[in-house]
């Protein structure tokens, strides 16, 4: 059962690692302080272009023939239908921190991306606006909305596709730094769980078992991680459980079943001593005294010898395959020495199976 535990821990560790590594919140909220007066000037002041094209000329014409109104009417137009309830006055210092972060300084600098500062919806003080922002999005389909905090205007954006936003990686994949812990723990369990000395016993090749475990784990982890990687967020992947996510995870589970086969192989061993053969398998063991063996016959599969078949005195037949096993010749010699098998006749050749 140790071999099974070893692989269960490996599969669980790799799965949890994939989950944490690709975990993305369903929504981020980005914030930026807004200076409407400055934006008004930028929007409506004449542009100086050396070689204006047709579109630029048209824009210039519109600018010259329409009334832009004042800066205050510009602000009113912008926030119309998407004004959120104002934040408390003590948020003034927080807005100042936003300015610093955009300049690459201050405690929020690591959350900045292309002129915006990113937060989880549950983080304070953004959480004060989150409910109203979401309601505004559902009501108007505008992703951005405006509020006042302290004496400043701020723009809040409902980032419902966090991976497509300009948010820093640490905000899009916040669990990554801790994702390595379960993986390293699983690898440690895989290596540290006792194996016992098997030298001299018939067993599966341990090198092959490790390679197969690695390949199986990589394939299972790939199919588990694929939907988490392909969707915009973990919540979006879970919403597709009846579609692509479900199919990919089912495939991952199927591949992971191969780890159970590996455990079955890794646990199998045959020890030979004076008392007879001791066959150990994942969930069972069998002691076969040499006196209980009636005959030993070649085990033939698709016309080819693949092992030996022990017919016991009580009528049971125990097939022992040599394919993929190490040290099978120890068993073979023991059986031959006990008079059950004959070596190929001298002077002839080994029959072509």
């Amino acid at each position: 059962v140790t071999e099974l535990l070893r692989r269960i821990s490996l599969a669980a560790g790799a799965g949890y690692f994939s989950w944490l590594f690709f975990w993305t919140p369903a929504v981020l909220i980005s914030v930026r302080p807004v200076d409407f007066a400055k934006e008004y000037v930028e929007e409506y002041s004449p542009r100086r272009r050396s070689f204006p094209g047709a579109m630029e000329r048209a824009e210039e014409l519109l600018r010259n023939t329409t009334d832009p109104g004042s800066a205050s009417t510009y602000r009113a137009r912008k926030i119309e239908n998407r004004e959120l309830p104002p934040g408390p006055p003590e948020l003034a210092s927080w807005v100042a921190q936003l300015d610093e972060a955009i300049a690459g300084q201050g405690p929020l600098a690591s959350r900045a991306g292309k002129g915006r500062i990113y937060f989880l919806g549950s983080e304070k003080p953004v959480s004060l606006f989150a409910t109203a922002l979401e309601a505004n999005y559902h009501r108007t389909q505008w992703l951005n909305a405006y509020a006042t905090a302290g004496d400043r205007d701020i723009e809040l954006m409902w980032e419902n596709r966090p991976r497509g936003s300009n948010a820093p990686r640490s905000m899009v994949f916040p669990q990554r730094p801790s994702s390595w812990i379960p993986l390293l723990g699983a690898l440690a369990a895989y290596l540290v769980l006792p194996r016992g000395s098997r030298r001299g016993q018939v067993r599966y090749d341990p090198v092959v078992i490790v390679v197969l475990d690695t390949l199986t784990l990589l394939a299972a982890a790939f199919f588990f991680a694929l939907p988490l990687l392909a969707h915009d967020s973990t919540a979006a992947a879970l919403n597709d459980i009846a579609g692509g996510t479900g199919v990919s995870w089912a495939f991952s589970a199927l591949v992971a079943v191969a780890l159970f086969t590996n455990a079955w192989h890794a646990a199998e061993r045959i020890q030979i001593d004076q008392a007879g053969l001791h066959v150990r398998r994942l969930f069972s063991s069998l002691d076969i005294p040499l006196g209980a063996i009636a005959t030993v016959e070649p085990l033939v599969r698709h016309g080819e010898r693949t092992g030996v078949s022990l017919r016991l005195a009580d009528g049971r037949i125990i097939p022992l395959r040599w394919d993929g096993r190490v040290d099978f010749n120890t068993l073979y010699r023991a059986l031959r020495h006990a008079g059950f098998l004959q070596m190929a006749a001298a002077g002839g050749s080994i029959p072509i199976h």
Partner: protein
Amino acid sequence: MPFAGPTGRSPRICLACGAPSSKDVRFCGSCGAALPPPLPSILPPDTVPDRMLWVTSFPLLTNRFILYDFAKVLGFTYLIMMLIAGILVLAGHWPSVQQIFQFAAIFAAAVAGIGFLMVLVMVLFFGNRFRAGFSVTPDGVSFETAMWRAKWSNRAAVVVGALARSPGTAGAGLLAQSSEDVSVAWGDVRRVKVHGEHCVLSIMNGWRVMIRLYCTPENFEQVHSLVARYASPGTLTGGNLE
């Protein structure tokens, strides 16, 4: 002691209880546990024929020797490419170290992709089995592909390569065809590695394995004895990949 085993080459220590055992027993006289297997014994000449030939099939993906060769080919290819890139950097033909890391990552992905394709071919096309015939005669050792699927695919690659005007495909087919049958004269054998636990003998020249003789537990001792008879003295070593 019911089983008096073949002669080992060195005194052995029981791994279960640590008691020393004489070199010609198979089980520990103290606790009865099986002793580490000695190198296979050389059978008396009258029990071994002058020549042996056998056909057997062996696994591909679940075969440590194939995996080892596989890793060696891909690893060396990668190393050589990186060496060339390093020389280009040193010679000033590569503008930045950043680019060499990008190249290393891209080429690693390409090598991994080739590895994945080879695994698919081994599993899906060959069914993780390869059937081959082996012979050990007074002239030397030989290996012959005994799998029509492998032979057919080699010839198909040549034809498809010729029709598609793809020298690479045709060349790969011809190369594979040329290695369907391999013979090595005893004079060219410099070393024979005996993998007794796995019933495999690696026939090597000065630097590489030319043929691996995949035996069965039934014939391994005889094949080993025959190889020991014909190979130059001192060429047999009890190597192991572990």
